[in-house]
Protein backbone atom coordinates (compact mmCIF):
# COMPACT_ATOMS: atom_id res chain seq x y z
CA UNK A 1 0.00 0.00 0.00
CA UNK A 2 1.24 3.54 -0.72
CA UNK A 3 2.36 5.84 2.07
CA UNK A 4 -0.54 8.06 3.03
CA UNK A 5 1.68 9.96 5.48
CA UNK A 6 5.23 11.02 4.59
CA UNK A 7 7.31 12.78 7.23
CA UNK A 8 10.50 14.03 5.58
CA UNK A 9 13.50 15.42 7.45
CA UNK A 10 11.34 17.04 10.10
CA UNK A 11 12.93 19.00 12.90
CA UNK A 12 11.06 20.67 15.69
CA UNK A 13 12.44 22.99 18.35
CA UNK A 14 10.80 25.09 21.01
CA UNK A 15 12.19 28.33 22.34
CA UNK A 16 12.25 29.04 26.04
CA UNK A 17 13.41 32.64 26.51
CA UNK A 18 16.34 32.71 24.11
CA UNK A 19 17.27 29.06 24.47
CA UNK A 20 16.40 26.66 21.67
CA UNK A 21 15.20 23.29 22.88
CA UNK A 22 15.28 20.63 20.15
CA UNK A 23 12.40 18.16 20.44
CA UNK A 24 12.54 16.21 17.17
CA UNK A 25 15.68 15.64 15.16
CA UNK A 26 15.55 14.97 11.45
CA UNK A 27 12.60 12.59 11.56
CA UNK A 28 11.70 10.69 8.42
CA UNK A 29 8.76 8.34 8.54
CA UNK A 30 6.26 6.79 6.16
CA UNK A 31 2.89 5.40 7.15
CA UNK A 32 0.82 3.28 4.79
CA UNK A 33 -2.88 3.77 4.23
CA UNK A 34 -4.81 1.50 6.62
CA UNK A 35 -1.82 1.04 8.90
CA UNK A 36 -2.15 0.99 12.70
CA UNK A 37 1.02 2.54 14.09
CA UNK A 38 2.03 2.84 17.72
CA UNK A 39 4.50 5.51 18.79
CA UNK A 40 6.29 4.64 21.98
CA UNK A 41 8.99 6.26 24.04
CA UNK A 42 9.74 7.76 27.42
CA UNK A 43 8.26 11.09 28.56
CA UNK A 44 9.84 13.98 26.71
CA UNK A 45 10.96 11.81 23.79
CA UNK A 46 8.87 13.83 21.33
CA UNK A 47 6.13 11.31 20.47
CA UNK A 48 3.21 13.65 21.22
CA UNK A 49 5.00 16.43 19.33
CA UNK A 50 5.33 14.15 16.30
CA UNK A 51 1.65 13.26 16.57
CA UNK A 52 0.75 16.98 16.79
CA UNK A 53 2.80 17.69 13.66
CA UNK A 54 1.21 14.84 11.68
CA UNK A 55 -2.28 15.91 12.75
CA UNK A 56 -1.68 19.56 11.84
CA UNK A 57 -2.11 21.13 15.27
CA UNK A 58 1.54 22.20 15.34
CA UNK A 59 4.07 23.08 12.65
CA UNK A 60 7.58 21.76 12.13
CA UNK A 61 10.61 24.02 12.38
CA UNK A 62 11.83 22.47 9.15
CA UNK A 63 11.00 19.56 6.87
CA UNK A 64 7.88 18.39 5.11
CA UNK A 65 4.78 16.55 6.25
CA UNK A 66 2.88 15.29 3.25
CA UNK A 67 -0.47 13.74 3.96
CA UNK A 68 -2.48 12.30 1.11
CA UNK A 69 -0.52 14.50 -1.27
CA UNK A 70 -0.82 17.74 0.72
CA UNK A 71 2.19 19.35 2.40
CA UNK A 72 0.41 20.51 5.53
CA UNK A 73 3.49 22.35 6.84
CA UNK A 74 2.85 24.92 4.12
CA UNK A 75 -0.82 25.55 4.93
CA UNK A 76 -2.01 28.72 6.68
CA UNK A 77 -3.95 28.54 9.97
CA UNK A 78 -7.37 28.79 8.37
CA UNK A 79 -6.62 26.25 5.62
CA UNK A 80 -5.06 23.94 8.19
CA UNK A 81 -8.19 24.13 10.37
CA UNK A 82 -10.35 23.15 7.38
CA UNK A 83 -7.94 20.37 6.48
CA UNK A 84 -8.02 18.98 10.02
CA UNK A 85 -11.83 19.07 10.07
CA UNK A 86 -12.09 16.80 7.04
CA UNK A 87 -9.00 14.59 7.30
CA UNK A 88 -8.17 13.92 10.94
CA UNK A 89 -10.07 12.40 13.85
CA UNK A 90 -8.66 13.13 17.29
CA UNK A 91 -8.78 10.95 20.41
CA UNK A 92 -7.25 12.41 23.56
CA UNK A 93 -6.13 10.87 26.85
CA UNK A 94 -8.63 12.92 28.87
CA UNK A 95 -11.47 12.61 26.31
CA UNK A 96 -11.92 16.42 26.10
CA UNK A 97 -15.67 16.30 25.71
CA UNK A 98 -17.61 19.54 26.18
CA UNK A 99 -19.30 19.10 29.57
CA UNK A 100 -22.44 21.13 28.77
CA UNK A 101 -23.21 19.08 25.67
CA UNK A 102 -24.82 15.64 25.55
CA UNK A 103 -23.09 12.68 23.94
CA UNK A 104 -25.14 13.36 20.80
CA UNK A 105 -24.22 17.06 20.75
CA UNK A 106 -20.53 16.35 21.37
CA UNK A 107 -20.43 13.96 18.43
CA UNK A 108 -22.38 16.41 16.28
CA UNK A 109 -19.86 19.24 16.91
CA UNK A 110 -17.51 18.56 13.94
CA UNK A 111 -20.53 18.22 11.63
CA UNK A 112 -21.60 21.80 12.39
CA UNK A 113 -18.74 22.87 10.14
CA UNK A 114 -20.18 20.91 7.21
CA UNK A 115 -23.13 21.70 4.96
CA UNK A 116 -25.08 18.64 6.07
CA UNK A 117 -28.75 19.10 6.93
CA UNK A 118 -30.03 18.45 10.44
CA UNK A 119 -31.46 15.07 9.35
CA UNK A 120 -28.18 14.09 7.69
CA UNK A 121 -26.23 15.12 10.77
CA UNK A 122 -28.54 13.03 12.95
CA UNK A 123 -27.95 9.99 10.70
CA UNK A 124 -24.16 10.40 10.89
CA UNK A 125 -24.16 10.94 14.67
CA UNK A 126 -26.37 7.92 15.32
CA UNK A 127 -24.19 5.78 13.07
CA UNK A 128 -21.02 6.88 14.88
CA UNK A 129 -22.56 6.30 18.31
CA UNK A 130 -23.82 2.87 17.24
CA UNK A 131 -20.32 1.90 16.03
CA UNK A 132 -18.96 2.67 19.52
CA UNK A 133 -21.97 0.88 21.00
CA UNK A 134 -23.41 3.96 22.75
CA UNK A 135 -26.64 4.31 20.77
CA UNK A 136 -28.59 4.21 24.01
CA UNK A 137 -26.61 7.00 25.66
CA UNK A 138 -27.18 9.84 23.22
CA UNK A 139 -28.86 12.15 25.74
CA UNK A 140 -26.34 11.57 28.50
CA UNK A 141 -23.95 14.30 29.55
CA UNK A 142 -20.24 13.44 30.00
CA UNK A 143 -20.57 13.49 33.80
CA UNK A 144 -23.27 10.81 33.50
CA UNK A 145 -20.90 8.45 31.66
CA UNK A 146 -18.01 6.27 32.83
CA UNK A 147 -14.46 7.01 31.68
CA UNK A 148 -14.61 4.24 29.07
CA UNK A 149 -17.95 5.50 27.78
CA UNK A 150 -16.61 9.05 27.58
CA UNK A 151 -13.67 7.82 25.54
CA UNK A 152 -16.04 5.96 23.23
CA UNK A 153 -18.04 9.17 22.73
CA UNK A 154 -14.73 10.90 21.93
CA UNK A 155 -13.98 8.17 19.36
CA UNK A 156 -17.46 8.60 17.86
CA UNK A 157 -16.73 12.34 17.59
CA UNK A 158 -13.40 11.48 15.92
CA UNK A 159 -14.98 9.25 13.25
CA UNK A 160 -18.24 11.09 12.61
CA UNK A 161 -16.80 13.07 9.69
CA UNK A 162 -15.29 9.84 8.28
CA UNK A 163 -11.67 11.09 8.31
CA UNK A 164 -8.93 9.07 6.67
CA UNK A 165 -6.64 9.23 9.68
CA UNK A 166 -7.24 8.80 13.40
CA UNK A 167 -4.68 10.15 15.85
CA UNK A 168 -4.86 8.99 19.44
CA UNK A 169 -2.72 10.38 22.25
CA UNK A 170 -2.62 7.89 25.13
CA UNK A 171 -6.26 6.87 24.52
CA UNK A 172 -6.17 4.29 27.31
CA UNK A 173 -3.97 6.28 29.70
CA UNK A 174 -6.82 7.32 31.97
CA UNK A 175 -8.80 4.08 31.87
CA UNK A 176 -8.96 0.85 33.88
CA UNK A 177 -7.83 -2.35 32.15
CA UNK A 178 -11.31 -3.48 31.14
CA UNK A 179 -12.24 -0.13 29.63
CA UNK A 180 -8.81 0.15 28.00
CA UNK A 181 -9.30 -3.23 26.32
CA UNK A 182 -12.70 -2.12 25.04
CA UNK A 183 -11.15 1.02 23.52
CA UNK A 184 -8.29 -0.93 21.95
CA UNK A 185 -10.72 -3.47 20.50
CA UNK A 186 -12.76 -0.62 19.10
CA UNK A 187 -9.68 0.94 17.52
CA UNK A 188 -8.69 -2.39 15.99
CA UNK A 189 -12.19 -2.65 14.55
CA UNK A 190 -12.03 0.86 13.12
CA UNK A 191 -8.73 -0.06 11.51
CA UNK A 192 -9.84 -3.40 10.11
CA UNK A 193 -13.50 -2.79 9.22
CA UNK A 194 -13.37 0.87 8.27
CA UNK A 195 -9.76 0.97 6.99
CA UNK A 196 -8.83 3.91 9.18
CA UNK A 197 -5.14 4.76 9.34
CA UNK A 198 -4.40 5.03 13.05
CA UNK A 199 -1.43 6.59 14.80
CA UNK A 200 -1.46 6.01 18.52
CA UNK A 201 0.91 7.41 21.11
CA UNK A 202 1.17 5.12 24.12
CA UNK A 203 3.35 4.14 27.05
CA UNK A 204 1.55 0.84 27.37
CA UNK A 205 3.21 -2.16 25.58
CA UNK A 206 -0.14 -4.00 25.75
CA UNK A 207 -1.82 -1.17 23.84
CA UNK A 208 1.10 -1.01 21.40
CA UNK A 209 0.76 -4.75 20.76
CA UNK A 210 -2.57 -4.08 19.04
CA UNK A 211 -0.78 -1.99 16.37
CA UNK A 212 0.72 -3.35 13.15
CA UNK A 213 3.85 -1.29 13.58
CA UNK A 214 5.57 0.21 16.62
CA UNK A 215 8.07 3.05 16.35
CA UNK A 216 10.20 4.20 19.26
CA UNK A 217 11.34 7.71 19.90
CA UNK A 218 14.07 8.67 22.28
CA UNK A 219 15.33 12.21 22.88
CA UNK A 220 13.78 13.30 19.61
CA UNK A 221 15.25 10.52 17.48
CA UNK A 222 13.37 7.72 15.81
CA UNK A 223 15.48 4.80 16.93
CA UNK A 224 13.83 1.54 16.21
CA UNK A 225 11.45 -0.12 13.84
CA UNK A 226 9.73 -3.36 14.62
CA UNK A 227 6.99 -5.24 12.83
Amino acid sequence: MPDIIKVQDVNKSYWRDSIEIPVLNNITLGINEGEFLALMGPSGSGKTTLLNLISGIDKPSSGKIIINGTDIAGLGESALAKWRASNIGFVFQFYNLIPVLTAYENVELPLLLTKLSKAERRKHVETALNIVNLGDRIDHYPKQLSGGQEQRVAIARAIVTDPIILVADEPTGDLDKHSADEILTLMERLNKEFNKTIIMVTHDPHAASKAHVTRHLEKGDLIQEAV
Partner: protein
Amino acid sequence: MKILKLIFKNTLRHKLRTFLTIFGIAIAVIAFGVLRTVVTAWYQGVEASAANRLIVRQAVSFIFPLPYSYREKIMQLPDVKEVTYSNWFGGTYIDQSNFFARLSVDPETYFDVYNEFVLPKDQLETFKKERNSCVIGVEIAKKFNLKVGDVMTVDGDIYPGRWEFIVRGIYQPKLKSTDATQMLFHWDYVDERMKQEMPGRAGDVGWYIVKIGNPANSSIVSRQIDALFKNSSAETKTETESAFQQDFIQASGAIITSMNFISFIIIGIIMLVLGNTMIMSARERTREYAVFKTLGFSGKHLAGLIMGESLIISILGGGIGVLLTYPIVAGIGEFIPKGMFPVFDIEPVTLIMAALAALIIGIVAAIFPIHRALKTKIIEGFRFVG
Protein backbone atom coordinates in the same frame (compact mmCIF):
# COMPACT_ATOMS: atom_id res chain seq x y z
CA MET B 1 -27.59 21.55 17.93
CA LYS B 2 -26.73 25.03 16.87
CA ILE B 3 -23.93 27.37 17.97
CA LEU B 4 -26.53 29.62 19.63
CA LYS B 5 -27.62 26.74 21.85
CA LEU B 6 -24.02 26.18 22.85
CA ILE B 7 -23.69 29.89 23.69
CA PHE B 8 -26.77 29.64 25.95
CA LYS B 9 -25.43 26.48 27.58
CA ASN B 10 -22.09 28.17 28.20
CA THR B 11 -23.86 31.18 29.70
CA LEU B 12 -25.68 28.94 32.16
CA ARG B 13 -22.62 26.86 33.02
CA HIS B 14 -22.04 28.79 36.27
CA LYS B 15 -25.57 29.82 37.07
CA LEU B 16 -24.78 31.74 40.26
CA ARG B 17 -21.92 33.66 38.67
CA THR B 18 -24.03 34.49 35.62
CA PHE B 19 -26.98 35.51 37.79
CA LEU B 20 -24.80 37.75 39.97
CA THR B 21 -23.24 39.37 36.91
CA ILE B 22 -26.65 39.99 35.31
CA PHE B 23 -27.92 41.31 38.66
CA GLY B 24 -24.86 43.59 38.96
CA ILE B 25 -25.38 44.97 35.46
CA ALA B 26 -29.09 45.52 36.14
CA ILE B 27 -28.34 47.40 39.39
CA ALA B 28 -25.72 49.53 37.64
CA VAL B 29 -28.10 50.34 34.77
CA ILE B 30 -30.77 51.35 37.30
CA ALA B 31 -28.26 53.54 39.17
CA PHE B 32 -27.22 55.09 35.86
CA GLY B 33 -30.86 55.71 34.90
CA VAL B 34 -31.73 57.28 38.25
CA LEU B 35 -28.67 59.55 38.28
CA ARG B 36 -29.25 60.68 34.71
CA THR B 37 -32.91 61.33 35.55
CA VAL B 38 -31.85 63.56 38.45
CA VAL B 39 -29.48 65.44 36.15
CA THR B 40 -32.11 65.86 33.42
CA ALA B 41 -34.72 66.87 36.04
CA TRP B 42 -32.33 69.60 37.12
CA TYR B 43 -32.23 70.90 33.57
CA GLN B 44 -36.01 70.70 33.07
CA GLY B 45 -36.36 74.41 33.90
CA VAL B 46 -34.02 75.26 31.06
CA GLU B 47 -35.84 72.87 28.73
CA ALA B 48 -39.16 74.47 29.62
CA SER B 49 -37.90 78.00 28.95
CA ALA B 50 -39.58 79.96 26.21
CA ALA B 51 -37.37 81.68 23.65
CA ASN B 52 -39.58 84.76 23.57
CA ARG B 53 -39.44 85.46 27.31
CA LEU B 54 -36.88 87.68 29.03
CA ILE B 55 -36.34 87.90 32.77
CA VAL B 56 -35.50 91.27 34.26
CA ARG B 57 -33.94 91.15 37.73
CA GLN B 58 -31.93 93.36 40.03
CA ALA B 59 -28.37 93.61 38.70
CA VAL B 60 -26.74 93.10 42.12
CA SER B 61 -28.68 89.98 43.09
CA PHE B 62 -31.89 88.19 42.40
CA ILE B 63 -32.89 88.59 46.05
CA PHE B 64 -33.17 92.38 45.76
CA PRO B 65 -36.50 93.71 44.44
CA LEU B 66 -37.28 96.07 41.57
CA PRO B 67 -39.69 99.02 41.65
CA TYR B 68 -43.19 98.39 40.33
CA SER B 69 -42.83 101.55 38.25
CA TYR B 70 -40.40 99.86 35.83
CA ARG B 71 -43.24 97.96 34.19
CA GLU B 72 -44.64 100.91 32.22
CA LYS B 73 -41.19 101.95 31.00
CA ILE B 74 -40.40 98.46 29.74
CA MET B 75 -43.77 98.28 27.98
CA GLN B 76 -42.78 101.28 25.86
CA LEU B 77 -39.88 99.48 24.17
CA PRO B 78 -40.25 98.20 20.61
CA ASP B 79 -41.09 94.49 20.16
CA VAL B 80 -42.22 94.15 23.79
CA LYS B 81 -45.66 92.50 23.67
CA GLU B 82 -46.41 92.06 27.35
CA VAL B 83 -44.79 92.58 30.73
CA THR B 84 -45.79 90.72 33.84
CA TYR B 85 -44.13 90.37 37.21
CA SER B 86 -43.74 88.00 40.04
CA ASN B 87 -42.50 87.84 43.61
CA TRP B 88 -41.13 84.91 45.58
CA PHE B 89 -43.43 84.61 48.58
CA GLY B 90 -41.94 81.63 50.41
CA GLY B 91 -43.87 80.63 53.55
CA THR B 92 -44.97 77.25 54.83
CA TYR B 93 -48.00 75.26 53.74
CA ILE B 94 -48.97 72.76 56.49
CA ASP B 95 -45.31 71.92 57.24
CA GLN B 96 -41.90 72.91 55.96
CA SER B 97 -41.34 69.72 54.00
CA ASN B 98 -44.07 70.78 51.55
CA PHE B 99 -41.76 72.66 49.26
CA PHE B 100 -43.25 74.19 46.11
CA ALA B 101 -43.12 77.60 44.48
CA ARG B 102 -45.52 80.15 46.00
CA LEU B 103 -45.52 83.32 43.93
CA SER B 104 -47.45 86.56 44.01
CA VAL B 105 -48.18 87.54 40.42
CA ASP B 106 -50.10 89.97 38.28
CA PRO B 107 -53.35 88.08 37.58
CA GLU B 108 -54.19 90.25 34.58
CA THR B 109 -51.08 89.40 32.57
CA TYR B 110 -49.38 86.36 34.08
CA PHE B 111 -51.32 83.71 32.17
CA ASP B 112 -50.90 85.65 28.91
CA VAL B 113 -47.14 85.42 29.26
CA TYR B 114 -47.14 81.86 30.62
CA ASN B 115 -49.56 80.33 28.14
CA GLU B 116 -48.24 76.84 28.94
CA PHE B 117 -50.22 77.07 32.20
CA VAL B 118 -53.63 76.02 30.90
CA LEU B 119 -56.46 77.41 33.01
CA PRO B 120 -60.18 77.24 32.11
CA LYS B 121 -61.50 80.65 31.10
CA ASP B 122 -64.13 80.81 33.86
CA GLN B 123 -61.56 79.94 36.52
CA LEU B 124 -59.19 82.61 35.19
CA GLU B 125 -61.93 85.23 35.28
CA THR B 126 -62.85 84.32 38.87
CA PHE B 127 -59.17 84.40 39.85
CA LYS B 128 -58.77 87.87 38.38
CA LYS B 129 -61.80 89.17 40.29
CA GLU B 130 -61.10 87.80 43.77
CA ARG B 131 -58.08 89.40 45.43
CA ASN B 132 -57.53 86.61 47.98
CA SER B 133 -57.85 83.81 45.44
CA CYS B 134 -55.13 81.56 44.15
CA VAL B 135 -54.45 79.20 41.27
CA ILE B 136 -52.54 75.99 41.81
CA GLY B 137 -50.92 73.45 39.54
CA VAL B 138 -52.66 70.13 39.10
CA GLU B 139 -49.81 68.25 40.84
CA ILE B 140 -50.30 70.32 44.00
CA ALA B 141 -54.05 69.76 43.82
CA LYS B 142 -53.48 66.00 43.56
CA LYS B 143 -50.88 65.84 46.30
CA PHE B 144 -52.93 67.79 48.86
CA ASN B 145 -56.32 66.65 47.57
CA LEU B 146 -57.40 70.24 46.89
CA LYS B 147 -60.30 71.37 44.75
CA VAL B 148 -61.75 74.68 43.63
CA GLY B 149 -63.28 76.45 46.64
CA ASP B 150 -60.87 75.01 49.21
CA VAL B 151 -58.86 77.33 51.44
CA MET B 152 -55.06 77.16 51.58
CA THR B 153 -53.43 78.71 54.62
CA VAL B 154 -49.81 79.72 54.32
CA ASP B 155 -47.64 80.86 57.23
CA GLY B 156 -45.48 83.65 55.86
CA ASP B 157 -41.78 84.11 56.57
CA ILE B 158 -40.55 86.66 53.98
CA TYR B 159 -44.01 88.19 54.28
CA PRO B 160 -44.85 87.53 57.93
CA GLY B 161 -48.31 86.54 59.12
CA ARG B 162 -51.00 84.06 58.34
CA TRP B 163 -52.26 84.18 54.76
CA GLU B 164 -55.42 82.55 53.54
CA PHE B 165 -56.12 81.93 49.87
CA ILE B 166 -59.17 80.42 48.23
CA VAL B 167 -58.42 78.03 45.39
CA ARG B 168 -60.24 79.44 42.33
CA GLY B 169 -58.38 77.62 39.61
CA ILE B 170 -56.31 74.53 38.90
CA TYR B 171 -54.03 74.79 35.88
CA GLN B 172 -52.91 71.92 33.69
CA PRO B 173 -49.42 71.82 32.15
CA LYS B 174 -49.47 72.27 28.39
CA LEU B 175 -46.15 70.47 27.93
CA LYS B 176 -44.52 67.54 29.70
CA SER B 177 -41.75 69.88 30.85
CA THR B 178 -44.16 72.49 32.30
CA ASP B 179 -44.00 72.92 36.06
CA ALA B 180 -47.42 71.91 37.45
CA THR B 181 -46.46 72.53 41.07
CA GLN B 182 -46.84 76.29 41.48
CA MET B 183 -49.20 78.28 43.66
CA LEU B 184 -50.01 81.72 42.24
CA PHE B 185 -51.93 84.53 43.91
CA HIS B 186 -52.45 88.32 43.62
CA TRP B 187 -49.42 90.56 43.99
CA ASP B 188 -51.88 93.37 44.88
CA TYR B 189 -53.27 91.36 47.79
CA VAL B 190 -49.79 90.92 49.30
CA ASP B 191 -48.69 94.48 48.48
CA GLU B 192 -51.79 95.98 50.08
CA ARG B 193 -51.04 94.24 53.35
CA MET B 194 -47.39 95.28 53.10
CA LYS B 195 -48.47 98.91 52.75
CA GLN B 196 -50.24 98.59 56.08
CA GLU B 197 -47.80 96.45 58.02
CA MET B 198 -44.36 97.10 56.44
CA PRO B 199 -44.65 100.19 54.22
CA GLY B 200 -40.94 100.13 53.33
CA ARG B 201 -41.42 96.88 51.41
CA ALA B 202 -44.52 97.91 49.48
CA GLY B 203 -44.43 98.58 45.75
CA ASP B 204 -41.63 96.13 44.98
CA VAL B 205 -41.71 93.19 42.63
CA GLY B 206 -39.21 90.34 42.52
CA TRP B 207 -38.63 90.21 38.80
CA TYR B 208 -40.27 91.09 35.52
CA ILE B 209 -41.09 88.67 32.77
CA VAL B 210 -41.08 90.30 29.34
CA LYS B 211 -42.75 88.67 26.35
CA ILE B 212 -41.19 89.80 23.08
CA GLY B 213 -42.43 89.44 19.52
CA ASN B 214 -39.32 88.01 17.91
CA PRO B 215 -36.90 85.80 19.89
CA ALA B 216 -34.11 86.98 17.56
CA ASN B 217 -34.41 90.40 19.20
CA SER B 218 -33.80 89.11 22.70
CA SER B 219 -30.28 90.52 23.10
CA ILE B 220 -31.25 93.93 21.63
CA VAL B 221 -34.31 94.23 23.89
CA SER B 222 -32.27 93.03 26.90
CA ARG B 223 -29.70 95.77 26.30
CA GLN B 224 -32.42 98.35 25.84
CA ILE B 225 -34.11 97.39 29.12
CA ASP B 226 -30.85 97.51 31.08
CA ALA B 227 -30.00 100.86 29.47
CA LEU B 228 -33.31 102.27 30.69
CA PHE B 229 -32.33 101.80 34.31
CA LYS B 230 -28.60 102.43 34.06
CA ASN B 231 -27.29 104.52 36.97
CA SER B 232 -30.58 104.19 38.84
CA SER B 233 -30.77 102.90 42.42
CA ALA B 234 -31.96 99.54 41.07
CA GLU B 235 -30.06 98.68 37.92
CA THR B 236 -31.32 95.65 36.04
CA LYS B 237 -29.88 92.57 34.50
CA THR B 238 -31.98 91.23 31.66
CA GLU B 239 -31.46 87.84 30.10
CA THR B 240 -33.39 85.16 28.32
CA GLU B 241 -35.46 82.84 30.50
CA SER B 242 -33.14 80.01 29.52
CA ALA B 243 -30.03 81.93 30.68
CA PHE B 244 -31.86 82.88 33.88
CA GLN B 245 -32.58 79.19 34.60
CA GLN B 246 -28.99 78.29 33.77
CA ASP B 247 -27.83 80.78 36.43
CA PHE B 248 -29.82 78.80 39.00
CA ILE B 249 -28.31 75.55 37.84
CA GLN B 250 -24.80 77.01 37.97
CA ALA B 251 -25.25 77.28 41.73
CA SER B 252 -25.55 73.50 41.88
CA GLY B 253 -22.94 72.97 39.17
CA ALA B 254 -20.54 70.92 41.29
CA ILE B 255 -23.28 68.51 42.35
CA ILE B 256 -24.52 68.03 38.78
CA THR B 257 -20.99 67.57 37.47
CA SER B 258 -20.37 64.97 40.19
CA MET B 259 -23.58 63.15 39.30
CA ASN B 260 -22.68 63.16 35.62
CA PHE B 261 -19.23 61.85 36.46
CA ILE B 262 -20.55 59.15 38.79
CA SER B 263 -23.11 58.00 36.23
CA PHE B 264 -20.29 57.32 33.78
CA ILE B 265 -18.08 55.78 36.47
CA ILE B 266 -20.93 53.28 36.95
CA ILE B 267 -20.62 52.31 33.29
CA GLY B 268 -16.91 51.65 33.89
CA ILE B 269 -17.75 49.49 36.92
CA ILE B 270 -20.19 47.37 34.92
CA MET B 271 -17.53 46.93 32.28
CA LEU B 272 -15.10 45.61 34.89
CA VAL B 273 -17.72 43.27 36.39
CA LEU B 274 -18.65 41.74 33.05
CA GLY B 275 -15.06 41.80 31.83
CA ASN B 276 -14.00 39.86 34.93
CA THR B 277 -16.75 37.28 34.39
CA MET B 278 -15.83 36.83 30.75
CA ILE B 279 -12.11 36.55 31.50
CA MET B 280 -12.82 33.88 34.13
CA SER B 281 -15.13 31.99 31.77
CA ALA B 282 -12.71 32.09 28.87
CA ARG B 283 -9.78 31.11 31.11
CA GLU B 284 -11.67 28.10 32.43
CA ARG B 285 -12.43 27.02 28.86
CA THR B 286 -8.92 27.38 27.47
CA ARG B 287 -8.71 23.60 26.99
CA GLU B 288 -12.15 23.48 25.36
CA TYR B 289 -11.19 26.21 22.94
CA ALA B 290 -8.14 24.10 22.02
CA VAL B 291 -10.55 21.19 21.34
CA PHE B 292 -12.73 23.41 19.16
CA LYS B 293 -9.71 24.58 17.18
CA THR B 294 -8.50 20.99 16.83
CA LEU B 295 -11.87 19.97 15.43
CA GLY B 296 -11.54 22.68 12.78
CA PHE B 297 -13.46 25.57 14.35
CA SER B 298 -11.96 28.89 13.28
CA GLY B 299 -11.11 31.98 15.29
CA LYS B 300 -14.34 33.49 14.01
CA HIS B 301 -16.32 30.68 15.64
CA LEU B 302 -14.53 31.09 18.98
CA ALA B 303 -14.99 34.87 18.85
CA GLY B 304 -18.70 34.26 18.22
CA LEU B 305 -18.97 31.91 21.20
CA ILE B 306 -17.29 34.37 23.59
CA MET B 307 -18.95 37.49 22.19
CA GLY B 308 -22.35 35.79 22.18
CA GLU B 309 -22.05 34.83 25.82
CA SER B 310 -20.91 38.31 26.80
CA LEU B 311 -23.76 39.91 24.85
CA ILE B 312 -26.39 37.58 26.34
CA ILE B 313 -25.29 38.55 29.86
CA SER B 314 -25.04 42.27 29.09
CA ILE B 315 -28.34 42.40 27.18
CA LEU B 316 -30.19 40.48 29.90
CA GLY B 317 -28.68 42.66 32.63
CA GLY B 318 -29.27 45.83 30.64
CA GLY B 319 -32.82 44.81 29.71
CA ILE B 320 -33.79 43.97 33.27
CA GLY B 321 -32.16 47.20 34.45
CA VAL B 322 -34.00 49.30 31.87
CA LEU B 323 -37.34 47.63 32.70
CA LEU B 324 -36.88 48.17 36.42
CA THR B 325 -35.67 51.76 36.00
CA TYR B 326 -39.23 52.90 35.13
CA PRO B 327 -40.94 51.85 38.39
CA ILE B 328 -37.91 52.78 40.49
CA VAL B 329 -37.70 56.31 39.06
CA ALA B 330 -41.47 56.65 39.49
CA GLY B 331 -41.13 55.47 43.11
CA ILE B 332 -38.31 57.91 43.83
CA GLY B 333 -40.34 60.67 42.15
CA GLU B 334 -43.11 60.06 44.68
CA PHE B 335 -40.74 60.68 47.57
CA ILE B 336 -39.02 63.76 46.16
CA PRO B 337 -40.87 66.99 47.01
CA LYS B 338 -42.81 68.03 43.91
CA GLY B 339 -41.47 71.55 44.10
CA MET B 340 -37.86 70.42 44.00
CA PHE B 341 -38.14 68.58 40.68
CA PRO B 342 -41.49 69.51 39.11
CA VAL B 343 -40.81 66.99 36.33
CA PHE B 344 -39.05 63.80 37.44
CA ASP B 345 -39.55 61.39 34.58
CA ILE B 346 -37.05 59.12 32.93
CA GLU B 347 -36.29 60.38 29.45
CA PRO B 348 -36.16 58.04 26.45
CA VAL B 349 -32.62 59.24 25.74
CA THR B 350 -31.55 58.03 29.21
CA LEU B 351 -32.93 54.57 28.50
CA ILE B 352 -31.32 54.53 25.07
CA MET B 353 -27.99 55.53 26.65
CA ALA B 354 -28.34 52.79 29.31
CA ALA B 355 -29.24 50.14 26.73
CA LEU B 356 -26.44 51.23 24.40
CA ALA B 357 -23.98 51.26 27.28
CA ALA B 358 -24.98 47.68 28.18
CA LEU B 359 -24.52 46.63 24.55
CA ILE B 360 -21.14 48.33 24.19
CA ILE B 361 -20.02 46.85 27.50
CA GLY B 362 -20.99 43.40 26.23
CA ILE B 363 -18.79 43.92 23.19
CA VAL B 364 -15.84 45.51 25.02
CA ALA B 365 -15.86 42.92 27.82
CA ALA B 366 -15.42 40.14 25.24
CA ILE B 367 -12.46 41.68 23.43
CA PHE B 368 -9.71 40.59 25.83
CA PRO B 369 -10.97 37.00 26.26
CA ILE B 370 -11.36 36.69 22.48
CA HIS B 371 -7.86 37.99 21.92
CA ARG B 372 -6.50 35.51 24.47
CA ALA B 373 -8.46 32.58 23.01
CA LEU B 374 -7.25 33.34 19.50
CA LYS B 375 -3.66 33.94 20.55
CA THR B 376 -3.36 30.71 22.53
CA LYS B 377 -1.94 27.92 20.37
CA ILE B 378 -3.72 24.56 20.39
CA ILE B 379 -0.87 22.76 22.11
CA GLU B 380 -0.64 25.52 24.76
CA GLY B 381 -4.38 25.19 25.29
CA PHE B 382 -4.10 21.45 25.92
CA ARG B 383 -1.27 22.00 28.39
CA PHE B 384 -3.24 24.69 30.25
CA VAL B 385 -4.08 23.88 33.83
CA GLY B 386 -6.77 26.27 35.10
